[in-house]
């Protein structure tokens, strides 16, 4: 019983940590710069911001849950258009209803209403989270990301409407001045910039161990964009994993993201390890066989050389003996001749 309570408590802590990471430390909009387009372009009033937040949340939750449940084994090049298809299937009925019943929003959104189907937040979170984790985890991630995205969007819309139009919810506030430039992308980006700085300040104060800079990696910013097309095409391109998982050396080594990934990938890890061991064993075997055969050939060569050298020495000895014998015979003949010549004299 106590064990069960303990497991539940750790699970809750892990979930809370995961929510914190998805919503605050890696805030998709402010720190990762994902899904900027609709916020910058259309969240210029409170009403449109709330509408945008709700539609995005609906899209993200449905898409992540469906991906986690059904699309894990589907190939990536089929999966990505399916996110778009799911987004379209959610956005189009909404678009139809909005055009019929709330034409003011339809007019305000204009071209951006159908463009909500291709929010980069969908593809990124489905590829990063939903494909790798369980349905429950994906749902939690989708909810936390949607809430954080929605809060930032609504606050941006709220401020932009007050500063840009001098109204709130369509009602005039009687402000002496209004800056209509705040209704353009300039205003959206400016407000998001200050919100991002505030969030970073909060993270540095509240969670000093975590590093929000990892969400937007600028280590490659000074790389040259020149090079042959083949070289550039061969460069790796993976925007879905950029700065997502904390490295083992970092302070977030025990973060829930990492733990969950490890748990969900355990069988894969074991398989990979087995395969690696098998490969290593095979390589070792091949290596030892190669060494053995090399040694064998070396030994044979040495033996051959030895034999050859031995043969040579026998022959040499024999030839030496022969020459010695011949010289000895010649000497003897000379001596005999000398003796004969002396006797005649």
């Amino acid at each position, binding site marked *: 019983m106590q064990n069960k309570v303990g497991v539940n408590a750790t699970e809750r802590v892990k979930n809370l940590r995961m929510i914190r990471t998805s919503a605050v430390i890696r805030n998709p909009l402010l720190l990762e*710069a994902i899904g900027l387009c609709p916020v910058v372009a259309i969240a210029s009033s409170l009403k449109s911001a709330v509408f945008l937040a709700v539609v995005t949340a609906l899209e993200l939750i449905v898409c992540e849950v469906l991906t986690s449940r059904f699309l894990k084994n589907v190939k990536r090049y089929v999966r990505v258009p399916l996110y778009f298809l799911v987004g379209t299937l959610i956005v189009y009925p909404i678009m139809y209803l909005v055009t019929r019943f709330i034409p003011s929003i339809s007019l305000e959104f204009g071209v951006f209403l159908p463009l909500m189907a291709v929010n980069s937040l969908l*593809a990124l979170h489905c590829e990063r989270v939903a494909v790798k984790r369980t349905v429950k985890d994906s749902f939690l991630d989708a909810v936390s990301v949607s809430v954080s995205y929605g809060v930032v969007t609504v606050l941006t819309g709220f401020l932009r409407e007050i500063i840009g139009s001098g109204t709130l919810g369509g009602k005039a506030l009687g402000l002496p001045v209004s800056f209509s430039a705040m209704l353009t992308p*300039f205003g959206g980006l400016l407000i998001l910039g200050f919100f991002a700085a505030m969030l970073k300040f909060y993270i540095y104060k509240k969670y000093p161990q975590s590093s929000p800079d990892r969400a937007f990696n*600028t280590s490659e910013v*000074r790389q040259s964009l020149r090079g042959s097309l083949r070289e550039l095409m061969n460069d790796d391109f993976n925007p879905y994993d950029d700065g997502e998982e904390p490295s083992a050396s970092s302070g977030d080594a025990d973060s829930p993201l990492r733990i969950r990934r490890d748990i969900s990938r355990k069988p894969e890890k074991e398989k990979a390890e087995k395969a690696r061991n098998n490969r290593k064993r095979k390589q070792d075997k091949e290596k030892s066989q190669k060494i053995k055969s090399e040694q064998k050939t070396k030994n044979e060569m040495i033996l051959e050389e030895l034999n050859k050298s031995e043969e040579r020495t026998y022959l040499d000895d024999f030839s030496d003996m022969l020459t010695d014998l011949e010289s000895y015979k010649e000497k003897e003949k000379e001596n005999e001749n000398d003796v004969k010549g002396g006797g005649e004299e």
Partner: protein
Amino acid sequence: MRIIFELLYASLYVSLMQNLIFNGGYGVSEAVRMSAKPRKLIPLAMFMTYFSVTVSAACAALEFIPKFHSSSEFFHIAVFSAVVFAVYILTMAAVQIYGKVQPKTVRRISIAAFNTLVMAVPYINYRSAFTFTESIGAGLGAGLAFLVAVLLINEGLKRLDLNTSVPKCFKGTPALFIYTALLSLGFMGLK
């Protein structure tokens, strides 16, 4: 001569006078994120230009069908989405026929095909009642606009990254957003 003028006019209008990224906010996420990885820019910009040109040409060609031309905006939008989908599938099929598809190529193609910049081009063409040539010019201009935006943001990001007087809280995305906002304000002046 008229065709060349229309092509140039539309592409320059979309890329400089009315830069889709700075003035419209289309594809701003991709531009900001890509500005931190300039080495990956050229291939992605090429694929984006390919998709924006192909999709806008196909959608503009459909307008020659009288029944489609007179149909509702809602139907137009649905067909434009279907065209993007079809162009993506055909491209993937062509890539697979050409050789083994690498994961990085799939990622590049999917990001280039499904983003707000490429999707927006046929809608803008339709709403602005662009001709066939102007539509192709707008497609080319979208790719050029992306290239211009990423290069400008990258240049600022490099300087901001080196600048030690930027407060710690403003390093990274906060300073980048404010810099992009100022660029956007500058491009509004060209409008």
